[in-house]
């Protein structure tokens, strides 16, 4: 299966190991992975700031890069959701519609398309799962605590395929971390406070690692953990599913 790898800009620049892990993982699972070389950003930072009109050429650049692929996979619920939902503001050409329909978040792709039942992965640590909001309430990757619906998750069963892992329970299983794009600087006080409360929930419940499907949340939480001098580490879901630590 041919897959185009979508690497969000901040992963490309600051967390290349997340993209490497995604690429290796998909390759291990039998995909033929392409990386379109002229991709940049999906345009979400501008759109969420109210400037979706000023993000159109950025969006068209993404579409041009991913035209022709049946499967586009990115390790970020937030950016994928942006393409799917807010590219409704781009001219709805055949190419734009196809990219919107064919783009997947990693855990969704592994669960719904590849339907993987096993993984060669080891990660002998206590892990807390941070449910990034856009994956959670935007893409419905797992049951939302607000809704009266039966339990399901597209992420937890994947984590359970990893040998040695111990998933910890949180007091608040799907509360926002407070990153929120430009919110993290425009509403600095609330953003930082939300993040502090999130990391404390993980620390209190014994996490050694915090994982999530979005590096943006993790970058924010990592910044707070480091400032606090905490030994708790962050790890993107892709890195965790691709790890072989014994």
């Amino acid at each position, binding site marked *: 299966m041919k897959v185009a790898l979508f690497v969000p800009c901040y992963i490309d620049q600051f967390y290349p190991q997340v993209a490497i892990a995604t690429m290796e993982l998909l390759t291990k699972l039998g995909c033929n992975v392409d990386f379109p070389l002229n991709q940049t950003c999906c345009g979400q930072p501008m759109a969420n700031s109210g400037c979706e009109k000023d*993000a159109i050429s950025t969006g068209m650049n993404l579409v041009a890069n991913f035209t022709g692929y049946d499967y586009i996979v990115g390790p970020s619920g937030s950016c994928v959701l942006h393409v799917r939902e807010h590219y409704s503001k781009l001219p709805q050409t055949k190419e734009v519609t196809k990219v919107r329909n064919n783009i997947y978040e990693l855990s969704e792709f592994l669960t719904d398309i590849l339907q993987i039942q096993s993984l060669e992965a080891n990660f002998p640590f206590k892990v807390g799962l941070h449910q990034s909001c856009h994956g959670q309430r935007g893409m419905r990757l797992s049951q939302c605590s607000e809704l*009266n619906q039966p339990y399901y998750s597209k992420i937890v069963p994947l984590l359970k395929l990893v040998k040695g892992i111990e998933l910890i329970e949180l007091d608040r299983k799907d509360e926002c971390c407070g990153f929120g794009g430009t919110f993290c600087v425009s509403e600095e006080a609330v953003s930082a406070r939300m993040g502090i409360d999130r990391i404390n929930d993980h620390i209190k419940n014994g996490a050694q690692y915090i994982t999530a499907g979005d590096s943006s949340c993790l970058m924010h939480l990592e910044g707070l953990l480091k400032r606090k001098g905490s030994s708790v580490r962050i790890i993107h879901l892709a890195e965790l599913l691709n790890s072989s630590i014994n």
Partner: protein
Amino acid sequence: MISEYIDHPKEADNFNEDFQRTTWHDETLWFIREKRDKATKSLPEWEELRDMAAAIKSNVLSNLDDYLIEFETNAIKNGIQVHWALNAEDHNKIVHNILLKHKVKKMVKSKSMLTEDCHLNQYLESKGIEVIDTDLGERIVQLDNQPPSHIVLPAIHLKKEDVGEIFHKHLGTEKGMSNPQALTETARIHLREQFLSGGAALTGVNFAIAETGGIAICTNEGNADLGVHLAPVHIASMGIEKIIPKLEHLGVFTRVLTRSATGQPITAFTSHYHGPRKGAEMHIIIVDAGRSEQLGREDFRKSLNCIRCGACMNTCPVYRRSGGHSYGYTVPGPIGSILSPGIDLKKYSSLPFASTLCGSCSDVCPVKIDIHTQLYKWRQIIAKEGKMPFAKKQGMKLMNYVFSRPSLYRLLGKVGRNVLGILPRFMMYNSLNAWGKARELPTPPKESFREWYLRNKK
């Protein structure tokens, strides 16, 4: 009136200066959110009820003119005097005229966000009429000359020690007394005196039933009843969107309202009023105050579904950590942030940005308002109408310029990472870097993914 810009980030920053108090505020409201979760999950048909409530509201908003006239006709048949108010001034004048006619010097009022929004208390006080808020939370904030910080729990930002201090100052209780039982008894005795001496009672309206011309009011303290039953004049103020078509629809709303608000199955009192007592008068004032305009905004009309349960406030991680007063609007939190820009776009332009767009508000909403989507849409309007700081708007244009030029993006990325890697700490962490106030910056890697890819795969 000169509109004063509400600076939510600044207000929120002030609120967060007291770390422990912020913790307490967050946990208190989260406790209510959890009660709401339990109550809603005890009903297998919960999601169906939300669908029904939203569908009824949608029907109401599409046929509002007809339902309002039907309601008026039936209310008049019941002996109720119906008044129409285009705006807050109209509303306040109508209330004042009714009070003048009856020579009322003191009016008791049960909770009504609409009259808060109309600044009725201040207006009547300027005319020499005393207004007593009879809801306990509202009375507490009224005594201290504060606005409510929450629409259901007006004094949720105050601790029992704060209430003790306010009562000491205004009701003469012993200094330092903060026992909740004793404080409640004090309020009870104080309020009984007010009820007995009130010349008129004003209430809000939770639901106005077109079919019957009657209204329903939900309270936990029975203060609406007590006021109305003791006073010779009852004035009920309602926004035009409070209409429901039939009595049979009321059950849907009473079931979702209180479960969403406090996690109770229903309020302690659901009072139905269908007309005046013998020898008494009942007035209903139907108020527009910007609602018709909101109804005309296709992207935002659904905000008029709101039944004022406050669930979006309790669940909002930003509200819980910034407090109701930081919004500077009668209805704070997510719902207030989509209602207020329609009233004054410039004044409230920071509110749609006081959100991470996490979406929790839309999921708890019992009438399924797409709150976070409307926040996103207000942001687009604020940017377009030039209500956004010039530098921010230019910054966004610049980002688009860079991101639509892949080689420029790569160049700037590389320069940025290299600079970050060698800058001394004092140059990275200073007042210009909001990120770095509480957080470390990510350690810049030697190469981007693309560079790694080209080195390894080609």
